[in-house]
């Protein structure tokens, strides 16, 4: 039983477009929602994270939108660049428990 469902599995977007990756969760105890970015041969690296007391968080070209009632959150990448091509993982964590529960990942390709 997957606690964090992520879609799409893969995504191809033209440079300058706005890729959107979606995640949904079941566990209402989750209170921290990070996104990780992974390049080939590297480990996942924290990109941006949000807590459920806000509906949106922006850091540079990356934005998380959070819908607590729907138990969904999404990552938007503005003005996407070929260098953004990577695998993106959403994750969730509950208070008092340090383990991260990940989605299945989205392989994003930005074509020039």
């Amino acid at each position, binding site marked *: 039983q997957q606690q964090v469902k992520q879609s799409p599995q893969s995504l191809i977007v033209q440079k300058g477009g706005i890729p959107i990756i979606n995640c949904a969760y079941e566990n209402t105890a989750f209170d921290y929602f990070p996104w990780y970015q992974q390049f080939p041969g590297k*480990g996942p690296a924290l990109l941006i994270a949000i807590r459920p007391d806000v509906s949106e968080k922006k850091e540079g070209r990356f934005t998380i939108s959070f819908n607590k009632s729907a138990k969904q959150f999404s990552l938007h990448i503005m003005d996407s660049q070929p260098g953004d091509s990577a695998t993106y993982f959403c994750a969730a964590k509950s*208070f008092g428990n340090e383990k991260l529960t*990940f989605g299945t990942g989205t392989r994003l390709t930005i074509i020039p």
Partner: protein
Amino acid sequence: EAGVTQFPSHSVIEKGQTVTLRCDPISGHDNLYWYRRVMGKEIKFLLHFVKESKQDESGMPNNRFLAERTGGTYSTLKVQPAELEDSGVYFCASSRRGRGETQYFGPGTRLLVL
């Protein structure tokens, strides 16, 4: 500051053999985690050390997996005997003491059991 390092980067072994993976966390990080990604699936939590103590080992698949963290520094994950379904990428991560600290991941060890 050096990142999390893992050794080896790749390992190919036959079913029934033993493999030991090593993780060196970022210096000063008390928390150390092991995760695994089977191809195409999610990254799954295996266990969490705080210094040398196992805080949570709820994700360990079975007793063929043994994790240790001697002296609260580096950690090893031994698989004995390895089975085909153990193939995947094993990630180690570390974080500072305290709740909600960022977990920094190593590059992973790619294990293939034939």
